[in-house]
């Protein structure tokens, strides 16, 4: 992927099923062409949220060198993040905020 400056992100890769869900929510335009014809939905996080997430998912990694994204989150976590993103009509840090709240409860 091209190097991107800016905020920390979680990349949710988009297949047909996920694209359909985004289309139904009127959010398909947020799925950006990312890599060799593949689309992703980028959900922004804060530095603090990133640390909390990495603590909760030790197998996940933060790619600080190239993409500034949190990678290797389990599929179930990505599915839930996408669900919350659609529910909240947002790709901002509030999505991860809700996700972390749910995880605590």
């Amino acid at each position: 992927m091209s190097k991107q400056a800016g905020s920390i992100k979680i990349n949710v890769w988009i297949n047909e099923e996920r694209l359909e869900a985004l289309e139904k929510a009127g959010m398909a335009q947020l799925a950006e062409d990312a890599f060799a014809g593949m689309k992703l939905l980028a959900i922004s996080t804060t530095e603090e949220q990133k640390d909390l997430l990495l603590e909760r998912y030790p197998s996940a990694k933060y790619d600080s060198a190239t993409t500034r994204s949190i990678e290797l989150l389990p599929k179930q976590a990505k599915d839930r993040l996408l669900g919350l993103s659609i529910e909240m009509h947002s790709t901002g840090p509030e999505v991860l905020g809700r996700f972390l709240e749910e995880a605590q409860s």
Partner: protein
Amino acid sequence: MSYIGHNGKPIVERVSTANAAGQIEGLPRVPISKATAHEVISLSYGFFTPLTGFMGRQEVDATLEKMQLPDGTLWSIPIVFDMSAENIEKFDVKEGGSVVLEYLGAPMAIFEISEIYEYDLERMAEKTYGTSDARHPGVKKTLAYENRFIGGEIMLINEPVFNEPFSNFWLTPKQHIDALVEKNWKHVVAHQTRNVPHTGHEALMKQAWFAANEDMPVDNLSTGVLVNAIIGQKRVGDYIDEAILLTQDVLRTSGYFRDSVHRVSFTLWDMRYAGPREAIFHAILRTNLGCTHHMFGRDHAGVGDFYDPYDAQNLLKQYRDGLGIKPVFLRENWYCPECQEVTNSALCGHDSKSQSFSGSVIRSILTDEVKPTQRVMRHEVFEVVLDSAAKYGQGSPFVSEQYLKDRLPVFTLKQLEELD
């Protein structure tokens, strides 16, 4: 058939399984780790030719100081057997004596002890890795060695029996050479891998095939790519071994490589991530498998930012005369949306638009179980990734703590009562 390895030295198998029970009678039995068991196997079959055992002090000194063995043969990585002084006493290990090396409760090899010595671990680490930073995994491994080293020759008395799917890909150096002759390959280019192949890897192998074919005619093909995977110590997040071998193999069985130009095998080796010195070691290793050429890409065998991307290639160039294999130097492949293809950074001028095959991005796509486009990964490779995850990886193509605990072993050994 002549079996000649690195620096023109004969490949000699040190295997003696007849009357194994009798051979070991009365000898002390020393348990060894998986990493040491891998090196015992490699030493015994000649993967490390001309080494016939674990190094003594003089060999380690020459390796670190001069990048050679005492006879002048190019060598880059210390191959050592460590043991605590306490265990040396406990197991009655003495210079001039022999012990039985035991792995997972089974006798494996006879170790003829020629030397017991101490070594400065920091010096060993600094010379091998070019750093003494303990964050480097190789440095960490070296600094964790016990306080004594034992040098001496190895004789395998109990041959490993490889389990599926490894048994389909295991070849000794002599068997490699036989297999390459059978394929009628005059030139063989080695591809070192610990990865599931994406299209960037595939393109690199194809570029290397042309480089290795050199001026040979192409009406009858006599150049091959030997994909030689490294199977050894795994870290959480690595691809599982089974997925690596099976996905590399499916590139050929699905026709992305002709049957006549491609073969997959593996070597047991715990990566040191020694960058330049490990590149030299890989060149030596693949010379012993009968390869004539070896691919070296960007940041070969490196880790983090300990080495510059082309350090390994530069060191290989420096020691070119001592190598029995021709290095094929490659730059990274990337996907270019302008060219609309996977292309090499040495050729494509659309730098600002290039999309690089970051390992973490590919892993992220696979973790999401989102089928990659054909430009990223062959669909057959993706299917094998999912199958391997289900069959061998408890649902994941990546190493987890559970995989490390529950995985099927790569090989097993006969127990004492089953030996001759």
